[in-house]
C-alpha cells in the first residue's frame, strides 16, 4: 500500500538524523508540558470547574492531546500545506496519477510529533483510574471512539486549513483558533466556556462532539445514550472540509497561484 510505503520512506529519512530526531521528540514532549502545568496549577487552586474534577479534566485533556498529536503526525502534509504550495511541490502532485488528497497525506509524516502523544498517554494512564469511571467494555469502547473522533475532527480541520491556503495565505492565522486553540482550550470540557461556545463547538466546528458529550456519558452525568456516539457525527466534519479543499484545488488550477 502506497501510504505504508510513504510512511517507511519518511521513517527512513528521519532516522538519518538520529540525534535531531530524538531531540525533537523530547522537545515535543516537554513543550506540551506547559499545557499540563496550566491545568495542574489552576485545578490545584480551584479543585472543580463546571462540576468536573481534576482527574476528569485530565481525562479530557489526554483525549484531546492524543487525538491532536495523532492527527498532526499523520496529516502533517495538510498542516504545513502553505509550504507545499510555496515550493512548487503541489505542481508535482498534480502531474501524478493519484488523488491529490491522498498524495498530500503521503507527502509528509512527522513522527517527532509523537512526543506529545507520549505525554498524552502518561496523563491518560493517570486519569483513567482516578476519574471515577467504572471501566466496562462499553466505556472503553467509547473512550476509543472519542480518540478516533478527535483524530477525525482535527485532521478535517487540517484539510480545511489546507483548502483555505489556496485562497489566502495571509488570512491563515485565524485558523489557529480552531487547531491550536482547539488543542489548548479543548483541554477543558467545552461547557466550561459557556453556552454559546458550546453551541459553536457543536454545530459549527464540532470539537465538543468528541470530548464534552461522550465525556458526560462516560462520567454518568447524562442518561442520553446517543451522547456516546456523537464522535461519529463529528467525523462528518470531513465533508465540508473536503468541499473547501475541492474548491481550493479548482481555484488553484484556474489561477495557477
Amino acid at each position: 500500500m502506497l501510504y505504508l510505503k510513504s510512511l517507511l520512506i519518511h521513517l527512513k529519512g528521519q532516522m538519518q538524523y538520529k540525534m535531531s530526531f530524538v531531540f525533537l521528540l523530547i522537545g515535543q514532549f516537554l513543550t506540551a508540558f506547559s499545557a499540563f502545568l496550566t491545568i495542574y496549577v489552576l485545578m490545584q487552586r480551584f479543585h472543580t470547574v463546571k462540576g468536573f474534577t481534576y482527574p476528569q479534566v485530565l481525562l479530557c485533556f489526554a483525549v484531546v492531546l492524543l487525538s491532536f498529536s495523532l492527527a498532526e503526525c499523520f496529516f502533517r502534509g495538510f498542516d504545513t500545506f502553505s509550504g507545499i504550495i510555496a515550493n512548487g511541490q503541489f505542481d508535482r502532485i498534480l502531474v501524478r496519477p493519484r488523488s491529490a488528497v491522498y498524495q498530500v497525506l503521503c507527502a509528509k509524516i512527522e513522527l517527532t510529533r509523537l512526543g506529545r502523544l507520549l505525554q498524552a498517554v502518561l496523563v491518560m494512564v493517570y486519569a483513567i483510574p482516578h476519574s471515577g469511571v467504572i471501566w466496562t467494555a462499553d466505556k472503553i469502547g467509547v473512550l476509543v471512539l472519542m480518540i478516533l473522533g478527535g483524530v477525525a475532527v482535527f485532521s478535517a480541520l487540517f484539510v480545511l486549513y489546507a483548502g483555505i491556503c489556496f485562497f489566502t495565505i495571509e488570512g491563515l492565522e485565524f485558523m489557529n483558533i480552531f487547531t491550536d486553540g482547539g488543542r489548548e482550550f479543548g483541554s477543558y470540557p467545552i461547557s466550561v466556556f459557556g453556552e454559546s461556545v458550546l453551541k459553536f463547538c457543536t454545530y459549527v466546528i464540532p470539537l465538543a462532539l468528541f470530548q464534552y458529550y461522550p465525556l458526560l456519558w462516560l462520567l454518568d452525568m447524562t442518561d442520553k445514550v446517543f451522547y456516546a456516539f456523537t464522535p461519529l457525527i463529528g467525523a462528518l466534519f470531513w465533508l465540508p472540509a473536503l468541499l473547501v479543499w475541492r474548491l481550493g484545488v479548482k481555484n488553484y488550477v484556474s489561477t495557477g497561484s
Partner: protein
Amino acid sequence: MKAYMSFFRIRFLGGLQYRIAALAGVATQLAWGGLYVLLYKAFYEADASAFPMTFRQVTDYNWLRQAFLTLLFVWMLDRETLESISSGAVAYEVVRPTDLYLMWFTKNVAMRLSRAVLRCVPVLLFAFLLPAPYGLSLPAGIEGFIGFFVTLFLALGNVVAFVMLLYIASFFTMNPTGLRVLMLSLTEFLSGGLIPLPFMPPLLQKILEFSPFGAMMNMPLRAYSGSLSGPALWTGAALQVFWLIVMAGGGRLWMGRALRRLQVQGG
C-alpha cells in the same frame, strides 16, 4: 538612528500591505482573549474565594496581554537574525563598524513595536467596548496609568534582552531548534503568559517575581489594573531595571565571546 527609523518605517508599511494578515491576527487575538475570559469566569464561579486577584484585574490582564502580545511574548523571534546565525552569514556582520549586539537589540525592538502598533489598537478598542466585567476597564488611577507605560517598556527591554540570550546560545549548540522551542515554551509559562503569576502556588510566585521572568509581562499587565501598586509596583520596576542591566550586559559580553570564537574557528 536614522537607519533604524527607516527600518521601522519599512516594517510598518510592509505590515500594512498584508491587510488580511493583520485582520486575521486581530481576530485571532480577540477570540483567544475571549476564551480566556470565559475560562476564568468558569473558575470564578467554581470558587470565587480562591481568586488571588479580582475578576476585573484578571480580565484586564488578559486583554492587555492579547493587545500587546507582540511586545511581551518571547516567541516572537526575528527570522533574519536566526538565519544569519545558522547560515554563518553572521561572520560578515563582524566586519561592519557597528555594535552587533546593539543592532540586533534595536532591530528586535523595532520589529515588535511595528507589529504591535498595527494590532493593539483594534484589540484595545474591542476590549473597551465589551460590557464590564468582561471587557477592559480604565487604568487604576494615575499611578496605574504611568506605571503601566513605564513597566511596559522595561518589560519589552527585558523580553528582548532574554531573546538575545537565546540567539547567542544558538552560536554554541549544534541543535538549536529543540533547545529553543523548549526554552520558549517554558518561559511562556514562567513569565505569566498562560496564567498570571498570582495564580501560581505562593512559593513559586515569590521566586518568579524576583526572577527575570517576573520582570516581563507580569509587571505592566498587573500595574494597569492596580494588582500591583505602591511600593510593590516600584520595587518591581527597579527589579526590571536590574534584570535588564544584568541580561543586556551579560548578553553583550557573551556575544563578544561567541563572535571571537566564530572568528577563531572560522564559522
